[in-house]
């Protein structure tokens, strides 16, 4: 079974530039998550999709970050314009579902995209 795919693996940009990350979840997984992991910290959930609808985006900086999951499969996360503090690893994960007390909410993670903003 193929895992969660992410690209690119590494990206270096200058502040105020734009960048986009792509994620392809495991086939059949309805729920997709984007996390930001700053060096030395645990991952922070940015946005969660159920199929192509947003379940939670309360921690997404909406003035500069946007995400979409057209057709309920793959997803794109964009930053425009980037700031120095956006330097982090951006992780994508997927799960069969998201119901508490269920095996459905086990998340499978991709390798991440390491973003450096200069």
């Amino acid at each position, binding site marked *: 079974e193929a895992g969660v795919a992410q690209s690119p693996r590494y990206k270096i940009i200058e502040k105020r530039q734009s960048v986009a990350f792509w994620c392809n979840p495991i086939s059949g997984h309805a729920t997709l*998550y984007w996390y930001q992991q700053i060096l030395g910290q645990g991952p922070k959930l940015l946005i969660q999709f159920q199929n192509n609808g947003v*379940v939670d985006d309360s921690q997404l900086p909406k003035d500069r970050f946007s995400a979409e999951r057209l057709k309920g499969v793959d997803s794109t996360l964009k930053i425009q314009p980037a700031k120095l503090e956006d330097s982090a690893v951006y992780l994508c994960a997927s799960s069969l579902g998201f119901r508490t007390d269920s095996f459905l909410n*086990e998340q499978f993670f991709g390798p991440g995209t390491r973003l450096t903003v200069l």
Partner: protein
Amino acid sequence: AQSVTQLDSHVSVSEGTPVLLRCNYSSSYSPSLFWYVQHPNKGLQLLLKYTSAATLVKGINGFEAEFKKSETSFHLTKPSAHMSDAAEYFCVVSDQTGGFKTIFGAGTRLFVKA
């Protein structure tokens, strides 16, 4: 409010000795609890999960964790550390707060000495 606290940022053990990584959580609902491991330059991998079945949960590579509701704890243990266990470990809580939220702890880095 939902939260998770990993009580140690770093733990150092000798190979062959027991491992204890501590995690406390706060949740208004019946939570699901997970431990993930992250080896350097590798993706996050699930070690084990608790979803209201047995309170003692066994995972991969000899790890286990016990859910203690009265203490709001979910500590990770292993009887005998191996060099390959050196990594970052994350305790994670998911519940129905505000829809459905997942929160990661700050992580505990495990060092294993030969």
